[in-house]
């Protein structure tokens, strides 16, 4: 099972090029799409979710032409948008049941079972009769994933799902996602690096409409080995360091400023080598320090 995206491009009427020849091959399992706000993630997600047209390129899911055959894709799609609302006065159970009907679960007995199961799975069973307007942020997200899971979808698209959740809710959400199942493609789009590192077997980094890196997270990070260095400096020295080095990221630590820089070789004294992690990969990629965009072949 594979989602093949081939040279997908999209330009908005106001001139912004949201996607520039994006190509990806996404196998089954959790796929993380990492990138800053405005990188084109949501545009890509919406296009995959049949909500937006692309200017050129093609997308296919096991023979379904996603761009042209929207009706077919929707039959196997589960989508959790970045921003969504609910009808405030309706209960979770009733609305979920309606969506189940819309997804084609016409048999009312079957529908009842599916809805009950999903509400249990998302820990909303005891709130099922309450109006959705009273749900907290985390509960609403869980409702969102419940409706995305209706009808045994084969492609699930989750757009920035953990922004705004408290730590406990985030963990709960992660557990939900990882328990979803095997023969499914789940695309998780986020700017939170740890979401990808915790959950995803494959990932891509997208920035300004382009895919800058794609492959297994560990392999991609391994590429950075030996090229990331850290140093503690004063805030007044920051401007000078920025001019002289390729600064990847800046952190505050115990009142002092900590910087990571990218360097093929060891920079001047004061710098310490650092085992790079996904965050380093993310910033280094998006800042353009990786001269050759790394796209590893799928290991199979």
């Amino acid at each position, binding site marked *: 099972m594979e989602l093949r995206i081939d040279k997908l491009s999209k330009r908005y009427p*106001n001139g912004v090029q949201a996607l520039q020849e994006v190509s990806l091959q996404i196998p089954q399992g959790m796929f993380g799409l990492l990138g800053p706000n405005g990188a084109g993630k949501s545009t890509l997600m919406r296009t995959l979710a049949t*909500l*937006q*047209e692309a200017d050129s390129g093609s997308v296919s899911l096991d023979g379904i032409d996603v761009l042209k055959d929207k009706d077919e894709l929707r039959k196997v799609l589960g*989508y959790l948008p970045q921003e*969504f609302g609910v009808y405030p006065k309706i209960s979770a159970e009733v609305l979920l049941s309606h969506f189940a009907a819309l997804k084609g679960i016409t048999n009312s007995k079957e529908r009842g079972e599916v809805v009950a199961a999903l509400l249990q799975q998302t820990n909303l069973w005891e709130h099922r009769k309450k109006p959705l307007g009273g749900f907290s942020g985390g509960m609403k997200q869980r409702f969102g994933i419940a409706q995305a899971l209706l009808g045994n979808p084969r492609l699930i698209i989750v757009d920035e799902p953990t922004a705004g959740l408290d730590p406990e809710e985030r963990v709960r959400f992660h557990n939900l996602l990882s328990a979803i199942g095997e023969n499914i493609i789940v695309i998780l789009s986020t700017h939170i690096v740890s979401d990808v590192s915790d959950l995803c077997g494959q990932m891509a980094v997208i920035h300004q409409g382009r895919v800058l890196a794609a492959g297994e997270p560990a392999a991609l990070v391994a590429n950075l080995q030996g090229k990331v260095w850290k140093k503690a400096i004063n805030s007044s020295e920051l401007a000078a360091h920025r001019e002289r080095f390729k600064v990847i990221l800046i952190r505050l630590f115990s009142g002092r400023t900590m910087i990571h820089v990218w360097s093929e070789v060891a920079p001047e004294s004061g710098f310490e080598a650092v085992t790079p992690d996904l965050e380093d990969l993310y910033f280094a990629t998006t800042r353009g320090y990786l001269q050759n965009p790394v796209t590893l072949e799928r290991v199979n």
Partner: protein
Amino acid sequence: MVFTIASFEVRQRLRRISTYVYFFVFFALSVLFVCVAGGAISGAAVDFGTGGKIWLNSPYALNVITMYITFLGIVVTGAIAGQATYQDTDSHISDLFYTAPITKFDYLGGRFLGALALQILIFSSVGFGAYVGAHLPWIDQSRLGPNNALAYLQPYLNLVVPNLVLTTAIFFGLAASWRKMIPVYVGSVLLLIGYFTAAQLSTNLTVNTVIALADPFGASAVERLTQYWSPFQRNTQLIPLGGILLLNRLLWLGLGVIVLAITYLRFSLSHPSQRSRKPRVATDTDEDILVPSTRALPISHPVFSSVASWQQFLSLTRIQFTETVKNVFFLVLVLAGGLFAILSANQIASPFSSRTYPVTYEMLEGATGGLFVFALAIITFYAGELVWRERDAGLNQIVDALPVKRWVLFTSKLTALLLIQIILVLVIMAAGLIVQLAQGYHRFEFGLYFTDLFAIRLFQYWVICVLAFFIHTLVNQKYLGHFVMVLYFVSTLALPGMGLQHFLYRYGQSPRYIYSNMNGYGPFAASLFWFELYWGIAAIALAIITNTLWVRGTGENLRARLQLAGARFTRPTVAALMVCATLLLVVGGYIFYNTNVLNPYYSTYAIDEGRAQYEKRYRQYKDLPQPKITDINTQIDLDPANRSVDMRGTMMLENKTSFTIDRVAITVLPVDLAPVPPPHREIQKLTFSGGQTTLLEDNALGFYVYRLNAPLLPHGRIALDYSVSYKNIGFVNSTPNLDIVKNGTFLNDRYAPFVGYAPDIELTDDSTRHKHGLDKVKRMPKLEDIAARNENGISSEADWINLESTVSTSPDQIAIMPGYLQKEWLENGRRYFHYKMDAPILNIYSLNSARYTVRRDHWHDVSLEIYYHAGDEFNIDHMMDGMKASLDYCSQNFSPFQFHQLRIIEFPRYGTFAESFANTIPFSEGIGFITYVDPTTVDQIDLPFYVTAHETAHQWWAHQVMSANVEGGTSIVETLAQYSALMVMKHRYGPDGMKKFMHYELDNYLRGRAQERNEEPPLYRVDANQGYIHYSKGAMVMYALQDYIGEDNVNKALAEFVKAFAFKGPPYPVSLDLISYLQKYTPPEYQYLYDDLWRNVTLYDNRARSATYSQSPDGKYKVNLVVEAHKFRADAKGQDHPVPLSDFIDIGVTDSQGKFLYLEKQKIEKEQNTFTITVDKPPAQAGIDPILKLIDRNPDDNTIKVDKQ
């Protein structure tokens, strides 16, 4: 899938309270309507054209009820249909639906059907309400007919459901396409108001095919199908879905389907930002994020004084104002309102489609009326928008936490709305000016514009603005707030109908007023001022309270807010409220003193009750033998500035009966019992020469009975000295007395004591009489009542009298009474006029007094004078012309004119009529004087000319020959005046030009009979208040008669008739007398006409079936015409019975210019008839009775286009 979505929609809506609120409100409105129409609520009356004889559950009435109330439901349709898709945008849930495996058709179709089904459920409440209302125990049972379930169902099939499909489609489409609710709001307002205004504009036009098709809600089509139905038909016949109605339904349903199709095509299940043109937010560059700023921020010094608050107030007001006004939809609303204002100001006025000069007060009335509902909509809607602006944008938590004073936040919004009203008022003025300029009229009277708009109208809008803010703040739910405001508006209409008429408790309302060029705001000014002041103070108090209730922060429930409001009552607030409350009490007290203490306050019910009491107690005196007046010598002192009058005089009474009279009853215009209360009356003297004792003295009802000390023998005479004075003090709650005014006083003889029981105080409407415990109205005495012929139709107290009067008024005014001016002089700062008649006249007389300009002319030795208000000289020439032409015609054909003067006198437009007294014709400012007569068009009737001719003719038909006070009497007085005026017109415009006029009269007659509340008699038994018969039918009858037997023959008959009865006392002539004279001059073959035209209610249904022509070898044209004729006689209930034909009816052929190539009477004896007619020129139209001389149920099918064979 469509069904799944639709049923989900319906099920969810059924769980909402709003659905049940809507259901209940329309149910209640329907019940209320039926109750009020059924006379269940005392003091309340509503007709809406259903009329007194129409059953409440008849197909016709149910149609009207259902139509009206569902029409109000357009707003609800907008809300429900718009929300059908907008709820997804509003809840941000769209994506979840768009990604589900449903098609566009499923989504749109399901939502549409759901919205439609829900509304059908909601509006079924109207039918239920009508049923329940009709079966409540307190309904007058005679207003109900047998129950017919189909009659309840049919308005839904014919009107409601197709209309819902159309309106739901429109609003559904608007919301789905724009994904906003504003187009829906604007759309529903435009639709509601546009339809309303169009309906108003077209009430004066006959509903023709174009109007019937153009009306999207089918009401006009139904009207066209039923406009000539008699009450009987309206009660029993279901309104068929055929003809023009079916066409209309198909047309508009088709349009609805097209709208749906367009919506479907335009819609896509995609993300809205796909089509958004908003510039994307620029992404920050890395530099900005990475580098913490090391520059220090500049230091600011916030100020928190009251000056600062004031400045904040000013700038916030400006922001709120521009935000509201800059909006495209606001502009649309204002422009649409302005357009309707222009159309309304430009309205074609009836009768005869005559326009008036666009004088400023007409512009103000028209444009204000046209814009009115728009203004209310704008106030309601934008009050809501302003109150909710921050919350809608999600900014409220930020704004509410700023250190701005609460009053600044509230008042700036209120002020913005108040400023918007200034825009509206300027739009009204612009509309008026545009219409005036367009018609080349330059007398703009800016002073009047500003006074009316800024001092009155603007103020009224402002008071309502405050209420809107109060409601939106209190209710704290935008849609519900709108709804409550709508309920307020409905209540302003409904409350007076329910008998709650005092303006002290009707928020924001003040009495209606009529502006007159002659008298300015006149007596209305005082009550307007005080009531506006009162409600202005109340509005300020309301604003203060609103300020304490103002929502700041996120507190929800009402109790918490009320507690918070309580805490907000600081000392200054309380002080301000106390001041307002005190002022309110003072002003209110003063008003109350005027409206309830100084002048008694009566609701309509109380007034009617007074009249009923008069009848119940004193009708027994009606047949008491009474002496008749033979001479009146009166002195009338009029004080226009103070609106008071003193009347003194002596009436000579003679016993013309064969009984000895020992008791005399006198009615003095009962205090406050006429529909418009006469002023305070004080009787100083009612003394008979020879002395009297008082048997009965009822001051409240104005009825007195005296026993004469010396009984009056037959032929005996006695003098009655009287002294009465009338004053107008303070102001009243409803319409003030408009007879005695500062400029333009118009009194009549009814202000003087009336000898005997006065029958015209009685209530004339059967429903009202029933409410007050009276039987049905007693009709006039029957023709056969010989004794009744001793009284004439104008006055039961006298035959012919000698009148001498001395009138005084203020020095700058001219006072006019019937009679020749003997002397005029100044004395004690007053101006005196002494008038005397040289021959007896009828016992009706008038007193006019105003600052007049006089135009003089003469006709033979008769001096003609027109007294008019300077500035109203538009049509003086036409009136002079009318007098001369009518004097010419009547004196040549009937008898010499009996006076040496004839005067027309203008009076203010409080009444819109003209009336003929002896050599004196008061003529309203509102008709004739400002009518616009276009010198270029031919087919427009010269109204001033016509009315003058009619009134002049009354100098013969009334002031020479007066009919007896029996049924059919007005067929002499009014019908013959119509005839005379018609002949004058015919000689001026030619017979061909009369068609439009006759069509108008026919239309009037048919509509009048459709609304007849009692029975329709034939012409010779017409009742005095059945104007549609004696004016309109009479005109047709006489015109037909002179066409059949010849104008000269009719005139010979009339001349003899005059000679026999002019100036003679009892017994007075009746219709049978007139008919006998006319019959004398009628050849035998036309004698049947009197049975048809006079003695029965006869109608025809003549139709041209087909007409073809062929050219014959000699160059002439042979026309083959097939016509149908049907003749009916109607019984008293309005049911038509066919009768056989044996009539002479015109058959005619016209050319393309409308000139008759052939017009001959043919004898028609069967229903189908074929005629072959040879004419010289190519024929265009042909038909039967083409000039409409006969009364035809369906006048538009009499002629048909002639096709080539």
